[in-house]
């Protein structure tokens, strides 16, 4: 998952900002610079118990050889946009959505710090990392069977422990957040089926 290179181009960045802008005033968003990354912090209209921070990389060049898809806006970010679009019309437990365009040590630390602070303000706050295609890279939370197993632990989501699909530096960073983290790959099945957004929200948000 970790990759020092980003091929985010301005147009892709703008496209993503425009897409979230179109969801206003149902949700608000702001753009920040954190270390060497541009970060979008999106705040849906959470319900009273909003406690989930959803995070994804808005560029994922490392996924290209796995998915066969070359895109300047990551598939994970497009999925998160669908999630945001869906929760824009209803209350959910999502407190914030964070998209960062460059996954580096500095940006990751900054973003996880934001997530940690926000989640800690909530009772039982937690973080969901969306990583579309991670399963094919070896991640363990991707297939639906594993998701069910994880779901069985609700509301005590286990701390992030071991994800073969993640690089060691990412694992280390996630383990330092001191909040429950679930890594979800919505692009799971061999036949290319996606975890439908309403199902994602019902299960995790």
């Amino acid at each position, binding site marked *: 998952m970790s990759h020092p290179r980003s091929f985010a*181009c301005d*147009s*892709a960045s*703008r*496209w993503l900002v425009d897409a979230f802008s179109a969801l206003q005033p149902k949700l608000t968003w702001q753009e920040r610079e954190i270390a060497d990354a541009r970060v979008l912090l999106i705040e849906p209209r959470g319900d009273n118990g909003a406690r989930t921070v959803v995070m994804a990389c808005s560029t994922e060049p490392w996924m290209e050889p796995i*998915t*066969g*898809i*070359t*895109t*300047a*806006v990551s*598939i994970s970010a*497009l*999925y998160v946009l*669908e999630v945001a679009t869906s929760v824009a019309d209803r209350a959910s437990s999502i407190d914030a959505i964070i998209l960062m365009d460059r996954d580096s040590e500095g940006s990751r630390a900054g973003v996880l710090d934001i997530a940690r602070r926000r989640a800690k303000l909530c009772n039982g706050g937690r973080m969901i990392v969306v990583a*579309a295609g991670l399963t094919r890279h070896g991640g363990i939370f991707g297939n639906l069977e594993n998701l069910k197993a994880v779901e069985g632990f609700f509301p005590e989501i286990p701390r992030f422990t071991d994800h073969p699909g993640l690089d060691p530096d990412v694992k280390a960073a996630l383990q330092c957040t001191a909040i429950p983290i679930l890594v979800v790959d*919505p*692009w799971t099945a061999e036949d*290319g*089926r*996606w975890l439908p957004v309403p199902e994602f929200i019902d299960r995790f948000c």
Partner: protein
Amino acid sequence: MPYNIVYADEPTYLDTAFISELSRRGSVKLYFDRPSPAELRERLSDADIAISEWSHFTADSMPRGGRLKHIALLLSGLDTVDLAAAAAAGVSVSNCPRYCVDAVADHVVACAYALARRMPAATRAGMAGLSHVYTPFLGRELRGSTIGLIGVGRIGQAVAERASRIGLRIIGCNRSGRPAPGIELMPIEQVVSESDIVSVQLPYNDETHGILNARLISRARSDSLWINIGRFKLFCEASLAEVLREQRIGGIALDECPYRMLGPVHAHGNAMVTPGTAWYTARSREQNLREVLENIDRIAAGGEHVAS
């Protein structure tokens, strides 16, 4: 056979299910901007199939002997492609004529109601704080009026279906002379002169460029309401500007309007301009992507030019 599929320009809407479906048909490259002609040519250089929403395809973009086999437009029209050049280069082209028929027909009816009730001016007044001001906003009811459909294809017929439920008399014209169910066909001049509401849903091409000219509009009733959900260039611009400034029609709704025409449009009190959104509903945008996939599959199955 796996294809190299290039989504060549800025998507208005994309969903992950669509991308996933594309990836089952080959490798996929997505772009999020509107390329210059040179950039477009570069993007198409290793593509078998190009999906496009904004770009203009000329002979230069489609070199003979290139790899490109098909251009799948997300649009209902075909005016962004030089079809002769495409044919010469062995490139087939498909459009999406079905995905937004209901949405656009709904939009036409919404515009008809809005203009008939002078909603543009009444809304401005209400939003400015006026209350219980009646005289400038005297409306009329649609039942019993005549709607004239210039173009009685899929969208025209969908408008007719809605119009019949409202209790309108429905007249219309087409070039083919083919009968259209529920629509009384007559020459275009007669359609314009007999209509309380004129709804234009024509494709834009060399034949229809400027078809709504001074001679034709001069036949319109002074209180007629005009709705055009197609390209602005169906109008003769100078003629329309004069008609609007002189208030020679009762109202107009445009879904595309060049900036320089906004002055005359504003000058007419009962006017609406939407930014090309007649088609834009959640259902339409999803159906749009499904229609593109169907077109690509038809090409993969050995189909030829599927534009219609």
